[in-house]
């Protein structure tokens, strides 16, 4: 795989389900076509999409305060997360619900964040998947620091930092690339360029591909079709191996599209140009994998029916769990501000007890 920019994103799996010619820029390791793997990728993308649909519906009925959909970005996330091994650690934004699914985070736990019962929801170390981070770019530095830690522990593990096209403008992403290249840290920068940062199109953040900018720091880059789960997996596998092997950071730009609104609070009709959504609908990541699997006879109708049933069951479970969730007790608000006792917190815990335990009318 080579350094530098490519105007056309690299791909392995075309929208019509055909495989592209092998290329030196992005080879297709034969294991990627193992039936079990293809089935797993299909199942994960389908389940992730179902989580997404369900969460959107739950927000509409008032069960969630907000939802940030990953619709259309399943391949970028599922492919890259599948490339991780047990030594790696991922640092997501707020949109990586498909990656979270691959990392084994229970969607019900994840929805706690959007329901407003928690700012976290899972134990990062259990899933090797950090908490969602809303402040743009902040987690990219955490990934680099974590990677610097792996160098010191000699663990052979790497970090993967997820971030959007918009976030690349933040100073933190720059500082992360400076630290990573200068320390040769084992980290993969995984930028999902989904075309938009809320209402701002990509050209508000850059005039050239993000890979060109990243190459300027002196690291290898790859610009891939982010709706191609095989490209995402192959590129990330290559990048993680590069990083783990001591060859330093890699930057991947996955060119994809946010099929939904920015969040459920957003109204994309105010800014999305006509035809864009329709074009990207023809690029669907799940559809093309389904076609490949049918072409290669890796799966037949019964498989797809089974996955659909699993997705429905998951949807059912999420709906029931979220709807039934009770509000946390008021007193929990005072827990874990510090790891050790802090007089001001304890004083406030006392002051807040009794008369205000039930909360008040807020006006």
């Amino acid at each position, binding site marked *: 795989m080579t350094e530098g920019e490519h105007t056309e994103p690299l791909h392995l799996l075309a929208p019509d389900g055909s495989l592209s010619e092998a290329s030196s820029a992005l080879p297709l390791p034969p294991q990627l076509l193992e039936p079990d793997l293809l089935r797993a990728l299909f199942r994960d993308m389908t389940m992730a999409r179902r989580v997404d649909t369900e969460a959107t519906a739950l927000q509409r009925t008032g069960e969630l305060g907000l939802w940030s959909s990953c619709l259309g970005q399943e391949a970028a996330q599922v492919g890259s997360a599948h490339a991780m091994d047990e030594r790696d650690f991922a640092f997501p934004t707020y949109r990586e619900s498909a990656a979270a699914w691959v990392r084994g985070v229970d969607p019900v736990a994840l929805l706690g964040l959007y329901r407003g019962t928690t700012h976290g929801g899972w134990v990062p170390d259990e899933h090797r998947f950090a908490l969602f981070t809303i*402040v743009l770019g902040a987690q990219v530095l955490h990934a680099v620091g974590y990677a610097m830690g792996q160098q010191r522990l000699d663990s052979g593990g790497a970090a993967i930092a997820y971030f959007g096209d918009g976030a690349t403008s933040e100073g933190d992403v720059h500082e992360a690339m400076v630290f990573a290249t200068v320390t040769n840290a084992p980290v993969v920068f995984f930028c999902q360029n989904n075309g938009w*940062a809320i209402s701002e199109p990509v050209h508000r953040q850059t005039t050239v591909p993000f890979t060109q900018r990243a190459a300027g720091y002196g690291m290898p880059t790859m610009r891939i079709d982010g709706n191609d789960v095989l490209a995402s997996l192959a590129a990330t596998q290559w990048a993680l191996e590069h990083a783990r092997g001591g060859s330093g950071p890699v930057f991947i730009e996955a060119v994809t599209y946010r099929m939904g609104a920015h969040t459920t609070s957003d109204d994309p009709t*105010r800014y999305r140009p006509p035809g864009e959504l329709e074009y990207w609908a023809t690029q669907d990541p799940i559809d093309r994998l389904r076609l490949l699997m049918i072409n290669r006879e890796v799966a037949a109708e019964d498989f797809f029916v089974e996955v659909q049933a699993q997705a429905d069951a998951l949807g059912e479970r999420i709906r029931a769990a979220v709807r039934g969730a009770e509000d946390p007790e008021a007193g929990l608000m005072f827990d874990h*501000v510090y790891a050790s006792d802090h007089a001001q917190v304890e004083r406030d815990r006392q002051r807040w007890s009794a008369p205000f335990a039930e909360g*008040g009318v807020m006006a």
Partner: protein
Amino acid sequence: MSAAPMTMVGGLNAGLRASLDHDPRVLLMGEDIATLGGVFRVTDGLAKDFGDQRVFDTPLAESGILGTAIGLAMAGFRPVVEIQFDGFVFPAFDQIVTQLAKHHYRSAGHTPLPIVVRIPYGGGIGAVEHHSESPEAYFVHTPGLRVWTPSDANQAYLGIQAAIACPDPVIFLEPKRRYWDKAEVALGTLSADDAERMWSSRTLRTGSDITVVAYGPMVRTCTEAANALAELGVKATVIDLRSLSPLDLDPIFASVRQTGRCVVVHEAVETVGLGAEIAARVVEECFYSLEAPVQRIAGPHVPYPPSRFERHYLPSIDRVVAGVVQVMAG
């Protein structure tokens, strides 16, 4: 001068429009403010009407927004910057504290930086993390900045124009949970005197028993609490600070000298919050008139919690009433 019922969002939009109309040096810049009109629609329609050189979307980089606004001010413009949410002002904190706040001082008055930093702030709307912060104390503690916050649509309409007219940098905090509240807005040109008056506090009701000091989102809470207190026979004076820097405290001192009692209410964390300053000043000035210690009703020493906790976290009408009742007993 005509009056119209408007939401605070509408009042801000009208105020920004008036300033853009009135002064060609005024620019609006920020994330999603042009095509989208801002995530709260405060700048809705302004890019269309004033063009993309005067109302424009920036890259997603808050330090960049503040830093380039400073450069634009040095070139003679009056940038009005939007920070999308309270929790996202911190990447710009260095430019605000070390550059914006100090430049007039450093240049011995030769280079004022008339920049307004609009920030939707505070909780109560069920938002996710980093969308409900009350960062005012950081700014009030910083010499060189002015800080202002409206409590209703009319105040917002007038205040934003006063802030833009001001030669100093102004942190303009918009209480997002009041964005959709309606009030009569007195449309019309803001005279220099009117603008000057916006920097003073405002007494909303007068009562002889206790002085309640509030600002921004807590003004409505305190007014409603005062109604409830009246039914309990407690007569409260309610003062809306409006300007948080400078603080206009004389009316508060005058009131406390009569009531002998004072509570200060804000959403922000109590520890080293604005309430501490006001309490300290009231004690310094009214020590011999005070019949009970000044009390603060504010946020606990906890990061802004997940939204399902916010009715416990935020000062509610009940908590203000209870706090006042307690001070009355003191």
